[in-house]
């Protein structure tokens, strides 16, 4: 491809495309700021009246009685997300490895289709399944079964496809020469996966885990249906807890005036937590790769 010839003017349709794409990009970027401004505006009433400290000092949440402790719910969000990642990450990465390195083509294609269907199941279906099947199993008759374990399992099912598909895609991008070279050096499948393929695909795998974590933090309906929703510190696998998102969904439709404003503070905290997480993940995932960069360079 050479540069444009002298006297060349860009066709109108190219200029139109440029304008359209630029405005789309500007719209997408300004939406985040608009949402932030809106949430800040709505939360401002509660913040100026009670101060930020009121939301992080107590462990009790009785918003209509003036007690706004958000910490147990923040801890609950952290606990369910961690639980879901612990369950889904090994399974998802394993499924991705299987598809990319081990499975024969037709099996891999079929398996991928299944995982994609799993990714398309609406969250409320997972929640309903959790409520009528999983929760009674965990409860075993003498317990509600709603709590950390049920929430983690349901979340894990929902983020599993993200991890599996991104891992597979990252592994597919590992240059075949690398794997062939490893095989020629006499490395077995385990060593090839552990020492060559995964380190080379590290950035993609981490990106998948970040996406999955983001979804786990934000997921609301399914968790709401199986977590028990009692405001309490995470105390055990079968003990109930309420996540930040679950709290907003549970109370927002019914909140007026001050209660509503308090819920927007919870939303603000959630937004800041996700932003912090994205920044941290960027720092971590953006570190130099273990393998010596692109083999073609």
């Amino acid at each position: 491809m050479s540069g444009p010839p002298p006297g060349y003017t860009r066709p109108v349709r190219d200029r139109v495309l440029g304008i359209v794409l630029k405005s789309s990009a500007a719209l997408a970027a300004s939406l985040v700021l608009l949402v932030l401004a809106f949430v800040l505006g709505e939360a401002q009433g509660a913040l100026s009246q009670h101060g930020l400290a009121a939301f992080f000092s107590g462990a009790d949440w009785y918003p209509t009685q003036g007690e706004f402790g958000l910490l147990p719910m923040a801890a609950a969000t952290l606990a369910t997300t961690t639980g879901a990642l612990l369950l889904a990450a090994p399974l998802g990465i394993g499924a991705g490895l299987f598809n990319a390195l081990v499975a024969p083509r037709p099996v891999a294609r079929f398996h991928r289709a299944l995982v994609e269907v799993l990714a398309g199941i609406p969250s409320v279906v997972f929640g309903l399944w959790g409520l009528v099947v999983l929760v009674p199993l965990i409860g075993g008759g003498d317990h509600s079964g709603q709590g950390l374990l049920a929430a983690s399992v349901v979340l894990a099912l929902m983020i599993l496809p993200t991890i599996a598909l991104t891992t597979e895609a990252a592994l597919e991008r590992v240059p075949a020469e690398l794997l062939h070279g490893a095989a020629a050096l006499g490395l077995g499948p385990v060593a090839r996966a552990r020492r060559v393929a995964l380190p080379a695909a590290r950035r993609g795998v981490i990106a998948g885990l970040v996406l999955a974590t983001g979804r786990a933090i934000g997921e609301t309906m399914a968790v709401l249906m199986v977590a028990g929703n009692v405001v309490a510190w995470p105390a055990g696998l079968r003990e109930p807890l309420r996540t930040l998102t679950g709290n907003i969904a549970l109370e927002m439709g019914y909140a007026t005036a001050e209660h509503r404003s308090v819920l927007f503070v919870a939303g603000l905290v959630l937004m800041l937590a996700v932003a912090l997480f994205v920044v941290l993940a960027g720092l971590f995932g953006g570190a130099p790769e273990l393998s010596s960069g692109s083999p073609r360079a």
Partner: protein
Amino acid sequence: MKNLSLLAALTLALTLMSSCSSDASAGRTETLTLTGSSTVAPLAAELGVRFEELHPEIRVDVQSGGSSRGIADARSGHADIGMASRALKPSESDLDATTIARDGVAMIVHQDNSITALTATQVRAIYTGKVTDWSEVGGTPGRITVVNKAEGRATLEVFLKYFGLEIQDIHADVIAGENEQAIKTIAGAKNAIGYVSIGTAEVDIEAGVPIKLLGLDGIAATTAAVADGSYPMARPLNLVTFGTPSPWAKRFIEFARSPKNADLVLRESFVPLSTK
């Protein structure tokens, strides 16, 4: 390239279009807005459809968002009529409430539970954590799972008021949002107890959901008992207005109370206004 620019233009056009789409209320010049209780909203929506058939010039807009929202919206003028599934509190005496139907709130347990009725004292002891095992209230031994409702729900307020409890007193194992979530939780946990609208529970029991309604203080929890006024934990379903209602709001409230529309009340499993 051409396809790409077409796609981009189309995307932008769709975005703009969806942002300024207007509702298709052709021919209807006025809007009557009702907001509030999610218990009353389905009934109000049914009434609204019938009202619109009679009056083609008006559109009835029903939005659900909880009784507290309905009261706040009626007061602020955001809604012509607020919906509330409870009686007005003393602090809400500036508003006018018109009852259009009645509903009972009842304790429910799993079908296999041996208990058939509880007294108010027993319910209070269970919900405050003083009684934690079914054997203490005459049932087969098993740790009680207490299911409560989320803050802001009228069902919770009716429950707290009836039993004279504060929300801080309650030791819950599960907090449910909707009636159905409470029912499914109890259907899946043999030792759980909760409370829901009697109408909703009766519909579910007919559909085969393994729960049962408990009598309260010796009176069986049935819509019939709510209808004759003997069941104690009952609540009015109210339409709430502030100041002088608009002519349309007034007509709608009269319409909602009319015996001709009692079939809609029954269809939603509520109790129509009694003749007494």
